[in-house]
């Protein structure tokens, strides 16, 4: 998704500095999800589909109120429902809106080898540019939240854009707009953290949630989506939200200390290619049969 009015601050697979970097200060935007006031109504799911023109898909009954087991390449916003029995025997029905967390230090972007396929705007939004995507799926491995999903027909990867197109026009994301209870908020990271901390304090002081707190994990540099949780010590209860998400070691090594190894491998590969050409000559082209067009896909 190309956004002329959004400026890029980080770029995947790109040597040198990002064009126009630091030309102007911007707020880091943030979505606040207060799971303690979410009623699982799924208005955000519908709004996401409608705004992003995502097609209807088939679902099957799976012994849950949850629309589908996990997000799809064409279903970016999914409320996860979990029944949790507390030690005192009372029940909690936890509902967490799951989508891209827009990490400050995005694992997907770190893992992506394609020039400009994943960008992070100066406002913090992490966005996929499908035109530049090579379909390698490394971003899927790189994400500690299991968010990016590949369209198997086009081999392109998709996820929540934080409605970058709306935000660039000073509108809040579609999910925020649709939320009836106000459990979703949108604004600067600073403001969202302030609201979140105050709410967590209220939950600790006035309600029976001594462990209430804010989820903004440091392992990925903080996130552009923060949660208020009844029990911040156990984020896993909420549909397996990782308590300390980090970029996988394989990605860190590959893009960090072992990058030289890749370069060596690349040079080695090129050398091999030259040797192969010298030894066997050029490949002879076969007639390829084009697959029938399967309809427009985003």
């Amino acid at each position, binding site marked *: 998704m190309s956004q002329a009015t959004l400026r890029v601050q980080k770029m995947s697979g790109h040597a040198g500095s990002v064009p126009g970097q630091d030309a102007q200060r911007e707020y880091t935007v943030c979505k606040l999800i207060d799971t303690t006031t979410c*009623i699982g109504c799924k208005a955000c799911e519908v709004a996401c589909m409608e705004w992003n023109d995502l097609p209807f898909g088939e679902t099957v009954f799976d012994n849950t109120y949850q629309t589908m087991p996990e997000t799809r390449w064409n279903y970016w916003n999914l409320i996860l429902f979990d029944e949790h029995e507390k030690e005192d025997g009372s029940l909690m029905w936890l509902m967490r809106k799951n989508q891209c967390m827009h990490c400050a230090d995005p694992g997907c972007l770190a893992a992506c080898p394609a020039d400009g396929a994943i960008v992070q705007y100066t406002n913090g939004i992490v966005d996929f540019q499908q035109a530049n995507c090579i379909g390698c799926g490394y971003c899927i491995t790189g994400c500690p939240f299991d968010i990016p999903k590949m369209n198997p027909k086009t081999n392109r990867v998709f996820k929540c854009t934080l409605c970058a197109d709306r935000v660039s026009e000073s509108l809040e994301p579609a999910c925020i707009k649709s939320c009836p209870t106000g459990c979703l908020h949108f604004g600067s990271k600073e403001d969202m953290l302030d609201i979140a901390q105050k709410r967590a304090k209220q939950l600790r002081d006035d309600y029976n949630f001594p462990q209430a707190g804010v989820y903004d994990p440091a392992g990925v540099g903080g996130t552009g989506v923060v949660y208020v949780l009844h029990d911040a010590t156990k984020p896993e209860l909420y549909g397996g939200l990782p308590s300390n998400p980090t970029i996988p070691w394989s990605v860190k090594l590959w893009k960090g200390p072992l990058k030289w190894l890749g370069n060596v491998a690349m040079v080695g590969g090129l050398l091999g290619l030259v040797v192969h050409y010298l030894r066997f000559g050029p490949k002879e082209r076969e007639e390829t049969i084009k697959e029938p067009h399967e309809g427009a896909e985003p």
Partner: protein
Amino acid sequence: MTNGWVDIKNTDMMLIMGGNPAENHPCGFKWAIEAKRTRSAKLISVDPRFTRTSAVADLFCQIRAGTDIAFLGGVINYAIENNRIAKDYIINYTNAAFVVDGGFKLPADTDGVFSGFDAEKHNYDRASWNYSGGKQAPAAATSAGQPAAPPPLPPLPEKVEYDLTLQNPNCVFQLLKKHYSRYTPEMIERITGISKEQFIKAADMYTSIRKDGDMKKAGTIIYAVGWTQHSFGTQIIRTAAMLQLLLGNVGRAGGGVNALRGHSNIQGATDMAGLFDTLPGYLKVPTPADGSFDAWMKRATPTSSKPAPWESFNYWGNTPKFTVSFMKTMYGDAATKQNEWAYDYLPKVDRDYSWVNLWNNMYNGLIKGIFAFGMNGVAIGPDSKKNIDALKKTEFLVVGEIYPDETSEFWRSPGISQEEMKQIQTTVYRLPCAGFAEKDGSFTNSARWLLWKNAAVPTPGDCRLDQAVVAQIFLRVRALYKKDGGKFPDPILKLTWNYTDPNNPSLAEVLKELNGKALADLEDPATKTQIKAGQQLPGFAWLKDDGTTACGNWIYSGSFTEAGNQTARRDPSDPSNMGVHPGWGWSWPANRRVLYNRASCDVDGKPWDATRRQVWWNEGTQKWVGNDVPDFKADSNPKDHMGPFIMNPEGVGRIFAPLSAFADGPFPEYYEPFESPIQNPFHPERTHNPVVTELKTADDKYGTVKDFPVVCTTFRLTEHYHYWTKNNPMNVQLVPEPFIEMGAEMANDMGIRGGEKVKVSSARGEYIAKAMVTKRIKPMMIDGKKTYQIGIPFHWGYRGIAEDEGKTARMLVNALTPTIVDPNAHTPEFKGFLVKVEKV
């Protein structure tokens, strides 16, 4: 609602019971969340299932469906025992101090019924359900020889005996205390399945707002059809109202008794006489026994009944003004004083024409045809098979809809063979009508706010607006009467029909008609304000009983004035920050947001809570003023002690509901649902509501716990709307197919895993769907016996996306539900009937 959606943000405490607003009213529920966020308000959810409302509650109690009176009666008992009552409020604003007739007896003393019960006829002689105040002769029988005339009841005494110390053993407060002293936590546990400890927690939390009688805080009770749909539904709501009076919560911001209506305009439907026994604005219908306009008015117009030194506004005393103005709207110049305002033109209601009886009469071949608009008849009533059998016997069926629905295709419902289909002679006319976004008009929401909407898109193809269809039918019937005459053509020929386009009346014109206009030049003697003939009226205070005003619905008077369509106003400002928003739409009556708001002040006219000021007495101007429109006589000095409940002849709230107010008792007593797993622990010989009777057709069957041991209730989901959204791919994606919600322990006992098919059967029919196995429903100990409870969402049927693709079972949940109704509101008992569950 006595209060309104936005007002919920002012509350300190919510009891949500018989309703699931987080799922069924998610937009309105924002105000409950707002109260939690801004006031740290507490929320108690009492429900047969742990719902999405329970998920954001501070306390959850799993209740056996249909045992709400036991729970609420227990809370009343707890409040009295622990001095958590609003003493000044109940003495001055309720009938707590009124002394009741010595002949009145409570069920504890009369084998589980109140005094006056006739076991043969299953009804009560309610003469003893009266206040003490000197005997008066029964009102004279109005018209001798007419059928269906009940024996006349004595009137309420003009001067009621009372005891402000509340010590008289026969005063309402002492009777209340005695009656509910039986509702102990132990008894609640036996009946409801809620443990003693959990019940006490809930009772303690709710009544904590009135700790030591302090009046600052307010609590609200929020409910929906989980309360109404019982064979004693009206009495559940009565119990809630009594509890709210006892706690001094009625008339207060953040308080009240708040019904959440299940459709966008169901409040409007009842306001406009969607019920058979009212005319618009809740005027009583005439009956054959009345015989004349004056006799009708004499019966329908109450006279005040109160302690001698107090005052009572008795606003229903204005009934003749509202009624004459209604008749002038209906028949214009044809309604004159000489012809008793065309009294003869009005149909007289001679029997029960409620939903269940209509379908019963259809089943018995007494109804030739039916017009079904804006509802899916076979799906929404109890006992679908009976409804389908009833339609088979009609000559014609006209359905105005936007989808092919179950009603218009009753003839090919599951189980009907090709051969049988050929036998069905009903002619079905399916008229393509308009969806909500294709119509303009007003919605009246649960908060009584009328909100105008514009049509968003034109109707597609040949679709017509409902009013155009109805108008065409009327005009053609009228033309036939004009041409051929008839037995009594006047009511048809003389009906007012002055719309710019008679074939397609504009709804704005209809609203103007409802608001009313002056038919002659009028002047208010006090202010000298004048209104010219033909002008729209500013409100119902102008209505006259001499034929100089016309008004289609007195409570809507003020909605479309000379200043324009008030319901279309969209000023969001809220100067008091109390959620009043006086310029947003328009609410009846007179744009008041909180009813009975005089009760938000103490006897001297000062607000109970200075931080939530609604109205107050201004000594300087000698007037009631405030942030809301005072629901009171504007110049009534507090010294005169006029009661805040101006619609009651007593002027005060009714903890004891005298005489004909209810068919089944002046206090609510706990009775079991008609199909129940136990005998009533209070009086085993009187298990059910004694005035409820079963229907007798071949299709009406009732089960017992021996064959049907599981308690079942029906419910709605956020993701679907009634029987509509199964036609919308988005909703189908969110929840693709029907299911049966059952507890994990029950499923485990039966060897059922989530997603496996189960069959639920009742005495009437069966329903097959996949099991949703959940921790959210637990087994209950009911009167010492382990009892299971299940819930079934009702949104599916035999027409829809998944249904048409053959992906679901194509069944209606109401195939299971019994035809048994509440004796006051005639609402069927959809919640809390008996079934058995089997693995398929």
